[in-house]
């Protein structure tokens, strides 16, 4: 036995330096290409950001609103004035502070949920319906981003996908002559398909060449934006005839989504379609084979591959569906919200807000619904807050951004609210597999 000493073994390995035998044991596992390992890092980050639990989402919103209060107070003129003599009469400063913050959030509430100054119910409920209207495209787009998240993909291309969807839906909407429901449905299908194609392109690039979807979707945003801008500025394509502005003609009446509650309110059928999309995505993820493969690929692509799931095909497929959902958002914009013709700012930043919505909603369809409504309320209330209390609407944007920030740092939020830190769980992710087993057992 001892005849085989290390010289013999060493000599052999030196003779064939290319061979498997002397690979270090760690490398004996199938060597993952660098891009895969990179993907792992994204995946871990993603899972951390989306797995914080409902308490963290709620905590993030509360913290962000508190931080917003500080900013409202600091920028308020009354508070600034009163603070100049803080030490002689501190109560002035405090009451100014209270009234500034209180009235700002009261205005936000009045603009977003319930107008308590209104005389009748119909007027008082108007802000809520307005919020839902703002939420409509956020729901669709948020679902698109969330679905991709669940499959481990970052779809940052919401803007481009919404724009091409809006262009396709709009083109059918003003350019064709068909009777009412058929025209609307055809325009919607065109929009959804265009969004799907735009996003599917990024999926295809990833599946065939390994190009990272973050890069490709961002770049496709630019391509989409300039493509649509060009078409809007070119007579015969999307530009309204006889106009010099880069703007499309108004939609045909037969392609417009009808108002949901009559002409008093601007809420339209797009909201219903968005709710249907929530139900669809829920079903897809929890009840369908396809959704199961999405989740499997998102949670553990290696195990998915070994189980015979075609990871590449799944990548393309999930990006198609995600793009379709974002396409729905673009479609409701042009066929429901802005029916008088659209320009290249029709996406209104929704493609990016959708990422926040998906994160806040924990990539869960129901969560996305509520997160989108919250953001819709911010949008609706923000302008009222600005108009009546002179609080800059940017505060709302800052609050939204802070929400993302806090969600990305769940340990911070847990520490502030004294929520239990899932130490074993987060620690396990950082530690090596061997140690993880030790902990799990």
């Amino acid at each position: 036995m001892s005849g085989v000493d290390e010289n013999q073994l060493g000599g052999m390995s030196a003779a064939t330096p290319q061979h498997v035998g002397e690979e270090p044991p760690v490398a004996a596992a199938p060597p993952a290409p660098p891009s895969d390992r990179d993907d792992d890092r994204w995946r871990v980050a993603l899972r951390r950001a989306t797995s914080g639990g409902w308490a963290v989402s709620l905590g993030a919103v509360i913290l962000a609103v508190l931080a917003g209060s500080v900013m409202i107070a600091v920028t308020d003129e009354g508070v600034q004035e009163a603070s100049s003599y803080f030490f002689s009469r501190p109560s002035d400063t405090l009451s100014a502070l209270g009234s500034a913050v209180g009235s700002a959030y009261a205005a936000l509430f009045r603009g977003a949920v319930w107008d308590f100054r209104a005389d009748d119910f119909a007027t008082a409920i108007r802000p809520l319906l307005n919020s839902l209207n703002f939420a409509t495209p956020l729901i669709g787009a948020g679902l698109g981003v969330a679905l991709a998240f669940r499959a481990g993909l970052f779809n940052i291309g919401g803007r481009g996908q919404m724009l091409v969807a809006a262009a396709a839906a709009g083109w059918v909407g003003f350019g064709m002559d068909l009777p009412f429901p058929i025209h609307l449905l055809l325009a919607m299908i065109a929009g959804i398909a265009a969004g799907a194609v735009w996003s599917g392109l990024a999926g295809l690039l990833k599946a065939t060449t390994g190009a990272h979807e973050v890069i490709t979707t961002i770049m496709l945003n630019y391509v989409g934006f300039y493509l649509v801008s060009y078409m809007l500025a070119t007579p015969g394509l999307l530009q309204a005839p006889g106009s010099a502005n880069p703007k499309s003609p108004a939609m045909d009446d037969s392609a417009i989504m009808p108002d949901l509650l009559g002409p008093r309110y601007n809420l339209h059928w797009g909201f219903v379609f968005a709710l249907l999309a929530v139900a669809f995505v829920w079903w897809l993820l929890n009840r369908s084979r396809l959704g199961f493969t999405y989740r499997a690929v998102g949670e553990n692509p290696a195990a998915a591959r070994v189980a015979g799931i075609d990871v590449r095909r799944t990548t393309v497929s999930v990006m198609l569906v995600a793009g379709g959902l974002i396409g729905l958002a673009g479609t409701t914009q042009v066929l429901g919200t802005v029916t008088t013709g659209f320009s290249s700012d029709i996406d209104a930043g929704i493609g990016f807000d959708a990422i926040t919505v998906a994160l806040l909603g924990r990539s869960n369809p129901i969560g996305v619904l509520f997160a989108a409504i919250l953001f819709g309320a911010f949008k609706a209330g923000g302008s009222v807050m600005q108009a009546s209390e002179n609080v800059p609407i940017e505060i709302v944007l800052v609050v939204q951004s802070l929400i993302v920030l806090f969600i990305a740092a769940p340990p911070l939020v847990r520490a502030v609210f004294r929520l239990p830190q899932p130490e074993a769980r987060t620690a396990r992710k950082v530690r090596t597999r061997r140690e993880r087993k030790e902990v799990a057992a």
Partner: protein
Amino acid sequence: MKLELRNITKRFGALVANDHISLTVNPGEIHCLLGENGAGKSTLMNVLYGLYTADEGEVLLDGEVQRFRGPGDAMAAGIGMVHQHFMLIPVFTVAENVMLGNEQTRGGGRLDLDAARARVSEIAARFGFHVDPDTVIEDLPVGVQQRVEIIKALSRDAKVLIFDEPTAVLTPQETDELMAIMRQLRESGAAIVFITHKLREVREVADRITVIRRGKVVGEASPTSTDAELAAMMVGRAVELTVRKDAPKISPSVFEVTDLEVRDARGTVLVDEVSFTVRGGEILVIAGVQGNGQTELTEALVGLQHDVSGSIRLNGQELRGLSVRDILEAGVGFVPEDRSTDGLVGEFTVAENLMLDRLSGPPFVKNGVLQLETLDTFATGAVDDFDIRTQGISEKVGRLSGGNQQKVVLARELSKDLKLLVAAQPTRGVDVGSIEFIHKRIVATRDAGVPVVVIATELDEAAALGDRILVMYRGRVVGIVPADTPRDVLGLMMAGIPADGTVAA
């Protein structure tokens, strides 16, 4: 230096990984820490090494209480650790790795490599082996890499050395040499902690044995204890170390691999002209030290490798070139080597994992819709049938112990309409109780007339489970021998030396 651990307790959430563990290691003594995977050995050593902070208890060196805030503190205090997975940088030389983290510099911040070289040679000479300080780590055999780890620890004047499962990656011969080095270290007065779950090694070198089970010290054993006694302490009851099985009843089905070659992306040959035949009702064990092509071979069998030539035929049907899904559908059950990475989705429930690779149609999928009621019924039955210890079928698989996770994989694969079973290290990281169960199930599959291929790295398992043993070395078949071949012959074969009279292929 005398090492003492007093009442070390470490919790991870609700899980108590170490429960008031006390341990004393004297200079000039090899103290074995014996326990199953998951018993809490590594956690304890990570506490000792400063990687974790203990919730209770203290670490003492020569009677003084230590407070380690990281491995740096532990090393400075004279504790050295030889990790199971080497902490070496593959593209650095031996000398560079040894000085890493403890760099001596000359004027202008230049590294003093000469000093490091001299240190390597001096320490190596002390133990009577030779390591070239200028060789790049990745060019060294595994056994020599481990020596570099030892040298690295000794170069910091470590008086307490921890060996964390050091033999997992070694050939039997390399293991023997490691034992010799450990004895030498003991003679030189070092205090050695040797962590393992292999009984034979324990009896060979240990002066004292402490057995840990589920985070608690269950007792001390003497090196003269029998395997059966030690195993009983580890698992808490007597276990059958051998697998009871009858002579194979050969069935007509046949799995035939001819001239199989697997190359990686760079064109390096990983599996080199491997041919074998397994008949129904027979278990062929593929043995060898990890990293000799077994992993790639099994992956090729189920379609997970890209660059494959040769032929893989199951009952006449060519499997090479088919997709993983098609191969699984042809009736191949596959237990992957690394269940947590390749076999299971940790965040999925037990039930979801039980249908993971059975999505192509009934019973779990109809018209693209999951049949959750069917799945629940099936999963409840499988949990019973395979004795999966779980709080329920909707518990996340990642929360189960290694043995129970493996039972989930096995339940999934064995409940198919099997034509072939490929199991790669089916008992790796599994507690002894589950090993017995898993072995029984594999034998039952064989007795049902299915050809079975098992990858094993431990000779005991290979000999117990196999009807025939195929030994691989550097991607090639060294030989196929009967299961009753003596250990030392198998050991030599695992080092690439064919046994006399071996029937090739």
